[in-house]
């Protein structure tokens, strides 16, 4: 059976002797089409016929490859050394490299040293076009070599690679093989043996592809693989150059140090605020969970996210964070470190509490990835060395070498770090690829997605093939399998414009008087079967990512907005959870889960549902069901709050935005209305119920979600901040925290409570998915919800975790079978890790997208705004600008402020700035530095001589365009309060309104006011106002809107899932505060009118501005609707105070929808046109009404 095989025993270990077999084979193919050797050929056949594994042992290497090189003109194969794969992958990935033989030795070495390189290499091997062959030299009878005595593993591997070259040159006489290596020693030895060999640079330079040279990684003089020579080399370099950094320890020393407890291992996280400070988070160290690092030498070339070994400094040298906000200067300061700069940093104050500090002594694992950023072109005209500024602040600048600096100027590029020698202040890197011009929206979006690792390619064909064909009908057999709930009065309650409806509800009264409540979730797992391409893709994406102007779906749109979406246009598959609930105390008597078929009777918005509940005249079954649900939900919520659930989500600020300028008109604390909270409660209940169920059936492999309670020390900043206002926050339990937050109110400062809650969210840990078999039950707790067990079940359209939970639940109720991977703990945990990662990245990407658009918004304007101090730093204040939901840093720029660390406060010229103080700041974008456009804040008030700036004067700034428009708008477009339009009070009766309406009509009738545009507009407004206020329903709706009632939103973020919130705000000092706009009181008929109007407009608009609006087709559909809404608002703005995310506004602005002269003209034209059309309609109407009136009289 087995071919005769030699046996070799490898030994290792210090105490233990481990003996392993190592079979050497004689059936390993050389992979060349040239080869005529029988062994090679037969092995290929056997390989393919006998094993199920798809391994690449076909004859991939071409028989007569063309040589692209000028030094090696003969046809040849390339054999790269490990260091080439590790460092020059960017070059090798170019398609000019073909016919490459990867030794198995190299493959293993790469795998050991860098997982990311390994993955790239695997991908390369699996690309058939590239003709890359993996030669299994380690198990080859003729090529295998044993380690010699005293030979280092590296030398042995190099020798093994040379052996392969030798084998090939003998085995294939017609073709040359070339060893590619950057290891001088290896090259030398190879040449001595008479093998062809070249360094990467030599080879690439011979390729007549100059742009490839840029991609060559900078070579470190001292290479990590040559540890032996290190001493000698450093001696020589010391003579030549100024050494900046201390040496890194060898890996063996680090291991010894870790073992003895002298060194600690941890993840290096550099500070966002100060590039000379960083923290290392240690693994499993209770005494020092994190170690603080300060100063160049102590940071010692570590880069954000690296795994490093740190040494604790003696206590006398411990430092405190300087509270300085320090950003790296723009210019290349060369390879010296300014001693002074560092000394300034480390000023030890004896009275302040010091943090355990340390220094990096070695890097255990680099976690470098390609970074997006910009080239900062050197001042010297012909220089080839330039600095690269990464988009991520925590990554140091990178020095790269390129000859195409002119081309790359003002472009976003991707750069990889290669090494960081001791004598260089900056790491050395190389150019990888070009993304596009800076500031271009597509480029910036791409940067954003790349930086957050969001897969955004279109769905491949294999995925689309998995979709069901249309028209889709429910087959009979499914009908028998599923519970038929089509008779029930089920409805969905969602934000308006929501296309992916994944939940619906119902409630009926059972004969015994109890309620039967049901939550019906889209049965996505029916369409996404395990193991299919669509499943793999969804798993990879894990979540739908929401950007300002883009939505990156997890599953193709056919599923997300049609087949899985529980719309009211036909029967749908659902997964239903049914409870029997006692109406008085909401006690659950019985729980059932079923796969079902439902027929939604109505897709309601929150506002509509609320209206139905409140409308005393409506008594249909659906409405009564809603009322019952609402009643139960209230009890459930009270119960939950009693148990100590934190209500951080419900107290966000919400912005009422002006529909025209994106100015927030009003800021109110967001109040969740009953319907929002009703849906939320039932979703929570469903999630908890399902979590219990799947954990009961699958205790080892349930996919759950936990939110660990934060350590008490996390709350320190919160407590300290509250103390400055003499408020005590108790943090012992979630309950106490919730209660004390509730009571912490400052009457003078509207935002005090909100800001406290913001600080609280930052103290939170991150909620995580996990596999129940790998954690003790005591850790399942969900802190924020105060639930002992929790999972995600209710949004399978946009989260992969929910799909897994659906499958588990289906298996638990015997509606579906399990499959191996579902029950594999490790595999599940891996999936969970990926979901956690993607989730986090999706959040960050969304936030970054908001940031990006905020910057674009402020690009051409300067605004004075209220701001509140969130944190007091040594040289800056961090402020919250509630109006835009922005957070920014107000630098003092060396102005002599006196810093009081204990209070904390900053004082200058007798003006004291404290925590939570209200300021006025001027916001502008510093566009001088194209590299990084930064938002600049300047203090306006309180006035500090020499520091604060003059308040913005409305008309004296450069934005006359906007101001003109503002005036125009104020005059005609906009009339926020309908009651004011009619000149009546809010409590006016219907009669009073009618009277006022006639009076105003007369006054502003266009016939009596010819040549007066204003009155014309006013007249229309009056008509609109009357339309709204005369009808009881619309009036109530409008009243609600005036009270700041949220009618729901077209965007996901406002459907607040408490669990999401913890993730959103977790520990991120850079976080942006989401702003919620509000679109009120729009019911469906109005909406339809609207759509018609915008269609008309849009057709016209398009024909006029074909070129101005290239992005239009990229909108995801809900957004499109929003945009149209805003366009159409010209018609209906009198009663629709449109609200929208201000980021959407930014987008509009950015597209010059409003403010470019072209568009404005188009808009004005359009408006006049519509107005005229409307006018005749209005006149008819008025006439009719008058006639009616007269008749009545």
């Amino acid at each position, binding site marked *: 059976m087995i071919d005769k095989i030699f046996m070799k025993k490898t030994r290792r270990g210090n105490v*233990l002797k*481990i003996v*392993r*077999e190592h079979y050497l084979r004689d059936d390993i193919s050389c992979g060349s089409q040239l080869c005529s050797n029988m062994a090679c050929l037969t092995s290929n056949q056997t390989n393919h016929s006998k094993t199920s*594994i798809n*391994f*690449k042992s076909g004859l991939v290497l071409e028989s007569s490859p063309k040589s692209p090189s000028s030094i090696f003109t003969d046809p040849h194969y390339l054999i790269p050394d490990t260091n080439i794969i590790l460092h020059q992958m960017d070059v090798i990935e170019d398609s000019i490299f073909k016919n490459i033989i990867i030794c*198995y030795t190299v493959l293993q070495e790469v795998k050991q040293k860098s997982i990311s390189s390994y993955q790239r290499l695997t991908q390369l091997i699996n690309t058939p076009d590239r003709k890359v062959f993996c030669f299994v030299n380690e198990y080859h009878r003729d090529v295998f070599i044993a380690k010699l005595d005293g030979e280092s593993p590296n030398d042995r591997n190099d020798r093994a690679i040379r052996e392969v070259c030798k084998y090939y040159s003998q085995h294939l006489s017609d073709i040359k093989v070339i060893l590619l290596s950057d290891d001088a020693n290896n090259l030398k030895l190879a040449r001595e043996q008479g093998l062809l060999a070249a360094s990467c640079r030599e080879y690439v330079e011979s390729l007549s592809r100059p742009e490839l040279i840029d991609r060559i990684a900078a070579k470190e003089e001292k290479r990590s693989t040559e540890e032996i020579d290190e001493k000698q080399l450093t001696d020589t370099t010391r003579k030549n150059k100024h050494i900046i950094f201390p040496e890194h320890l060898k890996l063996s020393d680090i291991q010894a140090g870790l073992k003895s407890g002298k060194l600690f291992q941890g993840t290096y996280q550099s500070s966002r605020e100060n590039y000379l400070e960083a923290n290392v988070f240690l693994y499993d160290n209770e005494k020092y969970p994190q170690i603080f690092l300060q100063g160049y030498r102590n940071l010692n070339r570590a880069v954000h996210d690296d795994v490093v070994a740190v040494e604790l400094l003696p206590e006398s040298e411990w430092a405190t964070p300087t509270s300085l906000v320090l950003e790296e200067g723009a210019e290349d300061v060369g390879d010296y470190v300014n001693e002074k700069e560092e000394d300034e940093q480390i000023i030890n104050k004896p009275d302040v509490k010091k943090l355990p500090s340390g220094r990096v002594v070695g890097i255990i694992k680099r976690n470098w990835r390609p970074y997006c950023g910009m080239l900062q072109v050197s001042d010297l005209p012909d220089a080839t060395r330039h600095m690269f500024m990464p988009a991520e602040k925590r990554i140091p600048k990178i020095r790269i070498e390129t000859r195409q600096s002119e081309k790359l100027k003002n472009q976003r590029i991707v750069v990889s770090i290669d090494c960081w020698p001791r004598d260089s202040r900056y790491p050395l890197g190389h150019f990888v690829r070009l993304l596009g011009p800076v500031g271009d929206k597509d480029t910036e979006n791409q940067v954003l997605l790349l930086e957050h690792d969001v897969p955004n390619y279109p769905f491949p064909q294999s995925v689309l093939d998995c979709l069901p064909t249309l028209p889709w009908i429910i087959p009979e057999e499914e009908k028998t399998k599923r519970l038929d709930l089509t008779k029930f009065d089920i409805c969905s309650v969602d934000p308006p414009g929501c296309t992916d409806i994944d939940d619906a509800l119902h409630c009926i009264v059972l004969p015994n008087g109890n309620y039967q409540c049901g939550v019906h979730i889209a049965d996505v797992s029916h369409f996404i079967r395990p193991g299919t391409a669509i499943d793999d893709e969804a798993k990879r994406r894990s979540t739908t990512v929401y950007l300002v102007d883009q939505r990156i779906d997890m599953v193709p749109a056919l599923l997300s907005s049609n087949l899985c979406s529980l719309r009211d246009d036909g029967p749908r598959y659902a997964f239903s959870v049914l409870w029997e609930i006692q109406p008085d105390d909401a006690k659950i008597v019985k729980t059932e889960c079923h796969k079902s078929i439902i027929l939604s009777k109505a897709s309601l918005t929150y506002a509509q549902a609320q209206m139905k509940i409140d409308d005393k005249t409506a008594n249909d079954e659906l409405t009564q069901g809603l009322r019952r649900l609402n009643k139960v939900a209230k009890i459930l919520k009270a119960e939950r709050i009693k148990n100590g659930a934190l209500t951080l989500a419900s107290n966000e600020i919400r912005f009422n935005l002006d529909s025209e300028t994106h100015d927030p008109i009003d800021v109110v604390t967001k109040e969740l209305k009953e319907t929002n909270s009703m849906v939320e409660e039932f979703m929570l209940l469903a999630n908890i119920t399902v979590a219990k169920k799947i954990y009961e059936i699958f205790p080892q492999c349930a996919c759950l979600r936990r939110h660990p309670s934060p350590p008490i020390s996390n709350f320190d900043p919160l407590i300290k901040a509250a103390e400055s206002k003499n408020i005590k926050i108790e943090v012992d339990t979630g309950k106490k925290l919730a209660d004390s937050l509730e009571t912490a109110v400052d009457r003078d400062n509207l935002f005090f409570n909100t800001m406290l809650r913001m600080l609280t969210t930052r103290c939170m840990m991150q909620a995580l998915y996990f596999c129940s078999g790998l954690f003790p039950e005591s850790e399942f707790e969900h802190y924020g919800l105060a639930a002992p067990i929790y999972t995600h079940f209710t949004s399978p359209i946009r989260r992969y975790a929910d799909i897994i939970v659906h499958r588990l639940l289906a298996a638990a109720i015997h509606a579906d079978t399990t499959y191996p991977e579902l029950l594999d703990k490790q595999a599940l945990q891996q999936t969970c890790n990926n979901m956690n990662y993607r989730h986090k990245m999706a959040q960050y990407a969304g936030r970054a997208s908001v940031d990006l658009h905020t910057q674009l918004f402020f690009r051409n304007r300067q605004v004075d705004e209220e701001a509140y101090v969130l944190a007091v730093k040594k040289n800056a204040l961090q402020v919250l600008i509630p109006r835009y939901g922005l957070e920014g840093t107000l630098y003092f720029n060396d102005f002599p402020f006196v810093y009081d660390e204990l209070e904390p406060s900053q004082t200058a010229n007798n003006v004291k700035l404290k925590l939570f103080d209200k300021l006025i700041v001027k916001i502008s974008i510093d566009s001088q530095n194209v590299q990084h456009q930064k938002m600049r804040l300047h203090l306006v008030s309180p006035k500090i001589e020499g520091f604060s700036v003059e308040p913005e004067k409305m008309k004296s700034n450069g934005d006359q365009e906007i101001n003109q428009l503002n005036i125009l708008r104020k005059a005609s477009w906009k009339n926020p309060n309908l009651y004011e339009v009619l000149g009546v009070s809010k409590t006016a009766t219907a009669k009073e309104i009618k009277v006022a309406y006639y009076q105003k009509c007369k006054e502003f009738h266009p016939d009596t006011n010819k040549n007066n545009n204003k009155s014309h507009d006013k007249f229309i407004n009056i008509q609109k106002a009357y339309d709204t206020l005369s009808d009881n329903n619309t009036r109530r709706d409008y009243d609600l809107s005036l009270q700041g009632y949220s009618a729901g939103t077209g965007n996901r973020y406002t459907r607040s899932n408490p669990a999401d919130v913890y993730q959103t705000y977790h520990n991120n000092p850079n976080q942006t505060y989401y702003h919620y706009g509000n679109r009120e009181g729009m019911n469906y008929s109005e909406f339809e009118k609207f759509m018609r109007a915008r269609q008309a407009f849009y057709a016209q608009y398009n024909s006029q501005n074909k070129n101005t609006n290239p992005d239009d087709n990229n909108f995801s559909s809900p957004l499109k609707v929003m945009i149209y809404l805003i366009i159409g608002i010209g018609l209906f703005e009198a009663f629709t105070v449109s609200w929208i995310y201000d980021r959407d506004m930014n987008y509009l602005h950015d597209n010059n929808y409003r403010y470019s002269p072209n568009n404005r003209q188009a808009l004005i034209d359009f408006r006049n046109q519509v107005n005229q059309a409307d006018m005749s309609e209005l006149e008819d109407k008025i006439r009719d009404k008058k006639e009616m009136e007269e008749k009545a009289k």
Partner: protein
Amino acid sequence: MATLLDPIIGLRIDGRRPNELRKIQCEVGVFAQADGSAIVSQGNTKVVATVYGPHENRGGRSKSLHDKAVINCQYSVATFSGTERKNKPHGDWKTVEMTSHLKQTFEAVILTEKFPKSQIDIYVEVLQSDGSNYCACVNAATLAIIDAGIPIKDYVCACSVSLIRDTPLIDINHLEESSGSPHFTLALLPNYDQIVLLESASRMHVDYLDKMMESAMVGCKDIYAVLNKYIKSRVGTISKNFSNLI
């Protein structure tokens, strides 16, 4: 244990393909004192088996059965078999369990009814352990029984199987065994396709079972081929010697 089966080259960590056995070496009649004996090594796993009997029941008549022979097994692991020296060669739960498995297996194949009121002793000792100990024991015991001339229905061949990346690996070594992936042991009568023992202490999804069983059965038959070849050649030499004697 990430690289137990390299996804690119499709070889296991010791260079075998997933469906390949380790090198099997065997020898029977190694001890003169015992009625039958055999040494089997599968790779680095080395096992010696000795068979005594059939003989009168030890421990009095009370333990004997009137219609068939009693099979007495003992499984033990030599103190020097592993990487660390063990203090107690037998008596722990593992060896007790193995003993009972062995007993079950051989009660099924030995034609015990031919030897009423007698006893057959099977002693196996693991000399060197590198995974799949039980399989090697069964295979060695089979050879020893054959050597002792005790009539059996068929060879019993045992093979272990594990599962990595959806691929069944047969005849697993220690490294593969301790990787935490599911594995089980199957003892088969290769000529009848009858399973005499299927033992597993790990969890696996039922979907994999068929696939793994199939590979394990193929493995058993491969082992059978090796053992049978050896026995044939040995019988050949014996008969040659015998005919020479005559």
